[in-house]
């Protein structure tokens, strides 16, 4: 079976974001979603370092060192943007005002637990940033990830073995093979991508998967 590529996946996620949503796109692959938001629809991007109404990367020569995103990359601000300090920005997240955030993951459990900040490897320098705040803050926490790690093990698991970022926080997982909702009964297949089948997904994840009814 084959799934879809990362850019296609970003585009697939972008389709599911309604106009008017306040959205935080996590560092890494989720940032790609920004490039696929429908033209002409207004979706307001939040970056936790203090900006709502984030725009695209600046033109060369117009980089502004004071205007960066959470990944510390140069960005722009749209008309209608607003700046605020860190306590206000994280109050916005923690207070449940963001509609959607899209995060990367090392593992997601069938209870919606997320592990995405540390592999717990000995000697690794711990660094969490805003990951835990994003995980518990948004109304809808979506994960964007490959279904499998490079060594072929499933990122969808019965229980996370990596250190947790948040407990029971993920509502949906977009992978290269399928889109899953996290329900009280575990992962439910929302949509198959590429030519994947549910049977294949169950084999790869070693999980019993619900199908969308």
């Amino acid at each position, binding site marked *: 079976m084959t799934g879809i590529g990362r850019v296609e996946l970003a585009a697939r996620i972008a389709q599911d974001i309604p106009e008017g949503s306040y959205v935080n796109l996590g560092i890494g692959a989720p940032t790609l979603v920004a490039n696929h938001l429908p033209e002409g629809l207004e979706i307001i991007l939040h*970056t*936790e*370092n*203090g*900006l709502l109404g984030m725009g695209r990367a600046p033109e*060369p*020569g*117009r*980089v*502004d*060192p*004071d*205007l*960066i*995103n959470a990944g*510390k990359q*140069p960005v722009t*601000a749209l008309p209608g943007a607003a*700046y*605020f*300090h*860190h*306590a206000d*920005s*994280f*109050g916005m*997240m*923690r207070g449940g005002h963001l509609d959607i955030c899209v995060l990367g993951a090392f593992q997601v459990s069938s209870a919606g*637990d997320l592990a995405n900040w540390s592999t717990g490897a000995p*000697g690794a*320098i*711990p*660094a*969490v*940033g*805003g*990951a*835990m*705040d994003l995980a*518990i*803050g948004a109304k809808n926490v979506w994960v964007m990830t490959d279904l499998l790690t490079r060594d072929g093990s499933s990122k969808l698991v019965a229980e996370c073995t990596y*250190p*947790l*970022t*948040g*407990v029971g926080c993920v509502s949906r997982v977009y992978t290269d093979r399928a889109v899953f909702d996290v329900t009280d009964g575990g992962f439910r297949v929302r949509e198959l991508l590429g030519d994947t089948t549910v049977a294949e997904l169950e084999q790869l994840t070693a999980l019993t998967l619900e199908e969308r009814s």
Partner: protein
Amino acid sequence: MIDKTVSTVAEAVAGIEDGSTIMIGGFGRAGQPVELIDALIDQGASDLTVVSNNAGNGDLGLAALLARGRVRRMICSFPRQHDSWVFDGLFRAGQIELEVVPQGNLAERIRAAGAGIGAFFTPTGVGTELAAGKEERVIDGRRYVLDYPIKADVALIAAYRGDRWGNLVYRETARNFGPIMAAAATTAVAQVDHVVELGALDPESVVTPGIFVNRVVAVSPRRWVENGEFVGGVDVDGEPLEVAR
């Protein structure tokens, strides 16, 4: 007449004692008070506890302070970055202590210190190893952990414009931790691009009222660029940035 402005960065950091807790503003390079940190390096205080979101980038600013062995302990959310080689080396050599705090809890703990809150229940980090040992409570059906304020002896921050009463405005995402750190420190020191006349800042738009600020020093032009990062950026007046070195 109240005049919190000082002429040099050396005056701005005078009197900082060994063993102090120092908050350093900035998120990565944006809002990092590089010139004040350089002055702190010259000033000599050591055995410091530094509270800052990151643990230094490249070899400038906070990274340079760390490289001199002047910091005993870092409290931050995200020490590990592609260009945090100075901190990485110290940490792996066991030469620096580290407390990692989720970014929003870090911000809220700093805000609590400035606002006189004794402690607060936060949902962030619940059930993770960063909440290990913290008091936990279920409120209205949701799990929270108790976090305490972080105060500082000194805050070093970077703002855009300031006046002689210490009123400050910031620029774009360089605002980040500046306002809350100024309020959480016994002595708050702000480097600004420009000192303006009293009354030149719109009272509706002042972000940090002067009550939180003790010293203001102008440092324009800032040394923003290193190793080609941000080359071609515009300065505070919209002029192209010069590469600092």
